[in-house]
């Protein structure tokens, strides 16, 4: 079942006719237009981790802003949980973490979550229990009574995650949840996203950090300049594109190895074992036959598949990532 349906969603930003720029009031006769999203169509299925990937300015944040009702689309439509955007029933069942979140810095951690809990209409006792649980889950128990003003970037991200889970949502939207975090913080968030899926929740997150996406996403959509470049299961997008083979073998004569050397991308020798990288399948078969014919042995053969990063670079044209 599709929990997020996006159909030909388009967003064109027009700078205001009357605009304050650098502190000066400017009158523009023709507003400057930027196409941030160009007929985006995609669906997110229930229970999956869906990655919205693309370089800066690809339209990831715009998509999320429209889905959250922060911006209105110029054209096209989108539905969440089968209902139109802005529906309060839907908002009760979703959670959202914006990019580089910033919260009321005059509030303490606990106070902040309590305030948001009230917006969900949660009773006092329910709020207390949930907040305690979430603070532990995101590792902020010690900072509950500190003002948000003193939170580090990582702590802000964590309290942001906590607020997105207050209502035990079925569907969580995370905009660049791992940006600006250290490797440990990124791992924590990765684990949290995976645990959300284990609970049967759907996670839609945007990222430009591909390794993280590759590790946890079921499906991804790749955006560039507001257009959808590719969408599908990671395995579908990347399989069939084995880029090279890594073969480890021994027992081939030295002169034969020298003859092979030009066809190998890389050759390393260690205690009589050779590790070679070959780029064509035919060469691999030939090398195996020859090695076996000379009485040698093939120790291992590993296909090197295309990484998401390589795919991304080829799709987006070698920029970004």
């Amino acid at each position: 079942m599709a929990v997020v349906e996006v159909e030909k969603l388009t967003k064109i930003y027009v700078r205001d006719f009357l605009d304050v720029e650098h502190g000066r009031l400017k009158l523009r006769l023709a507003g400057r237009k930027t196409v941030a999203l160009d007929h985006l169509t995609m669906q997110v299925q229930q229970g999956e981790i869906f990655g919205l990937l693309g370089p800066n300015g690809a339209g990831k944040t715009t998509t999320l802003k429209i889905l959250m009702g922060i911006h209105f689309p110029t054209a096209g439509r989108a539905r969440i949980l089968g209902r139109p955007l802005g529906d309060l029933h839907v908002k009760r069942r979703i959670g959202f973490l914006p990019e580089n979140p910033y919260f009321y810095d005059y509030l303490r951690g606990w106070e902040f979550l309590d305030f948001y809990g009230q917006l969900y209409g949660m009773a006092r006792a329910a709020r207390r229990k949930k907040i305690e649980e979430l603070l532990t889950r995101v590792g902020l128990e010690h900072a509950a009574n500190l003002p948000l003003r003193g939170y580090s970037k990582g702590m802000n991200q964590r309290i942001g995650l906590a607020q997105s889970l207050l209502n035990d949502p079925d569907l969580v939207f995370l905009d660049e949840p791992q940006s600006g975090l250290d490797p440990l913080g990124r791992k924590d968030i990765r684990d949290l996203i995976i645990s959300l899926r284990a609970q049967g929740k759907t996670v839609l997150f945007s990222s430009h950090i591909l390794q993280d996406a590759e590790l946890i996403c079921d499906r991804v959509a790749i955006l560039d300049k507001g257009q959808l470049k590719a969408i599908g299961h990671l395995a579908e997008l990347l399989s069939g594109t084995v880029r090279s083979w890594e073969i480890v073998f021994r027992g081939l004569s030295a002169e034969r190895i020298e003859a092979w050397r030009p066809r190998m991308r890389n050759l390393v020798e260690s205690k009589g074992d050779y590790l070679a990288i070959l780029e064509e399948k035919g060469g691999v078969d030939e090398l195996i036959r020859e090695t076996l014919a000379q009485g040698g042995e093939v120790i291992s053969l590993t296909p090197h598949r295309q990484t998401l990063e390589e795919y991304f670079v080829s799709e987006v044209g070698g920029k970004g990532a």
Partner: protein
Amino acid sequence: MNQVRAIAVNTFKEAVRNRVLYVVLIFSLILIGASGVLSELTVASRDKIVKDLGFAAINFFGVAIAIFVGVTLVYNELEKRTIYTLVSKPIHRWQFLLGKYFGLLMTIYVNVVVMSVFFLFVIHWYAAMEAERGVFTTFFLSAAKALVGLLWWDGFPPTRNIMPVVAATAIELAIVTAFSILYSAFSTPTLSMFFTVLTFIAGRLNEDIVLFAENVRDTALETGTPLPLSYYLAQGAAHVTPNLGVFHQSVEQALYADEVTIWWQSILYGLIYTSAILLLSMLIFSRRNFK
């Protein structure tokens, strides 16, 4: 309504935890307190000077908070992007704006109450001084009278006409606050401030503008010339802006007479005007793209 209340309380917390508010409050208290000393320098009666300055302080600082805090309230949420998560919560945009309004109004009213208590205290203090009791007795007696007088308006002769004026001021402040929220719902703080100040001035001068329009009309009728543009401009301005003079005239009454009347019509006028402006703000805000 719970959501509106939660947002209002949060807005109140934001304002209360802002040091600027205390500076404004302390300054206003100094002004009220100094009124007795200032009266020594003038020929007018002390009573008049104390009341004059007291009313002026409550009015001026109330409007100042409405404008300076009001115009940044919505803007800050957009600028700091705190609104992003708020919008994803199950609240309507109008609830957000209404919460902001009531939170700000709560802040202003708490300030007004603090200023009023001090104002009443100063008046009782000077009245009690004449009885020549000890300083402590005078202090506690005046403080007690001030606190009781806050609710029991008719309680003590020297201050019986103070609280009705403060109540009228409170209605005026509700209108001004609604305007600062309206302007900030669609423009920048600087522009909002400018618009709100203009609206406030035009509102106070509302009856004068009407008089001016009538003068222009009479002159035109006498000379048989067509009505000039200034007539229509003045009429337009008088009809668009609120008539804040209605609420201000009670101050005049309190200074020169013992009886102050608040007409129920003016209360109704204030309520309707405030609701209309809030409704307009909510309409504009619900269609707005956030940065």
